[in-house]
């Protein structure tokens, strides 16, 4: 377990800390996520999937779940991915060709966005915010935020597809 922690603890802690920005709570959630991952890791098929991606998914979901409970956010739909995964055996085994594994490419793609686009991506991807919450945070109309998120996602897709080609 401690070897596992030494190898992946920084990644899991970083994902959780980035989302909740509270070191004490991040420690609690990291410990909880690690025990959860450890108890389930026997069911993970390494040949089919990307272990780091799975770890990040578990850590991110735990952090977002906590944030949504704190925010009492009725809009966001926690668990959409899990709901879909249950209908897709082996989906955590996303084909390696469908992964953008190069951290440099991802950072370059994020840097290619304008500041507002990057901001909304950070709020959706790293803090689990819904578009309504982002609209309140940015004090912009919901329609404007949806357009901003849409354009940011399209830019990201095009850059990442190009980098992955």
């Amino acid at each position, binding site marked *: *377990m401690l070897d596992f922690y030494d190898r992946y603890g*920084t990644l899991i802690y*970083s994902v959780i800390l980035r989302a909740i920005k509270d070191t004490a709570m991040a*420690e609690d959630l990291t410990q909880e996520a690690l025990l959860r991952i450890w*108890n389930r890791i026997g069911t993970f098929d390494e040949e089919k999937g990307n272990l780091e991606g799975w770890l990040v998914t578990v850590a991110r979901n735990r952090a977002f779940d906590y944030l949504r409970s704190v925010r009492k956010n009725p809009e966001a739909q926690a668990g959409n991915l*899990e709901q879909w995964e249950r209908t897709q055996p082996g989906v955590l085994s996303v084909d390696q060709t*469908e992964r953008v594994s190069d951290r440099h490419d991802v950072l370059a793609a994020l840097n290619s966005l304008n500041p507002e686009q990057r901001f909304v991506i950070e709020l959706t991807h790293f803090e689990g915010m819904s578009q309504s919450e982002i609209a309140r945070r940015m004090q912009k109309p919901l329609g404007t935020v949806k357009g901003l998120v849409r354009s940011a996602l399209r830019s990201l897709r095009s850059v990442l597809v190009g980098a992955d080609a």
Partner: protein
Amino acid sequence: MSEVLKSSGCEQYEDNYDLYVLGSLEEPEAASLAEHLASGCAYCHSQMKQAVGRVGSISQAVPLVAPPAHLRRRLSASLGVAPVARPNRLPWLIATAAAMLLAVMTVWQFRTQLFEREVPRNLAAESTRVSGMLEILAAPGTVELPLADLGNQSLHGALYVHKKLGMAMVVDKLPSAPSGWVYESWVVASNGQTRPIESFDPDAHGRAISVLHGPIEVSDFRRMLISMEPVGSASAKPTKLVFQGAIPRAG
């Protein structure tokens, strides 16, 4: 990338896959996409797979921050086994836990010697769970709380709570989980938040234990749940609820 043909109406979901994966897509768009996916649209399923990869890659691009050194010590402490003083209560439970630990260690040693390969991780997890339970049961100050069954199941349960070490749940008469499913324990906090604890399997007699490590204030929690989850899933909420136990206030 995908050679799957787009069906009519797929365009409206083009910008929603990533948000759906993140759980950030709101209604009515989320329900609409869920319904469309349930219809079996191959194009949208292929797009969802790409979105999972894309979101996962972006999430991994967080700035890496080393956790504080005491987190490792804390984790290590939560896994350790304290010297066990002979307890004067619940001899059958201690005996069961000890027997489970002995069985785990025997299988562990046998497999290690026989195959000379890495110990299966679920055995390691079982050993950790039993060790944690023994530690809580043996510690002075541990309180036993019966779990009042809120459903109509014939399950019996109890909680053993130690303020510093954590909480161990014991249930009886739990049938084996169907193939492809595993039991998972959850705790419902006073604020209504549901937190997963761990996945586990009952023994041949239907007895199972689940341990939540770390300092705990039992008044912060309302209920313990047991659900069945698909093997390998990381659901944030119970999928099939099989047991709800109300946590009484400690006297």
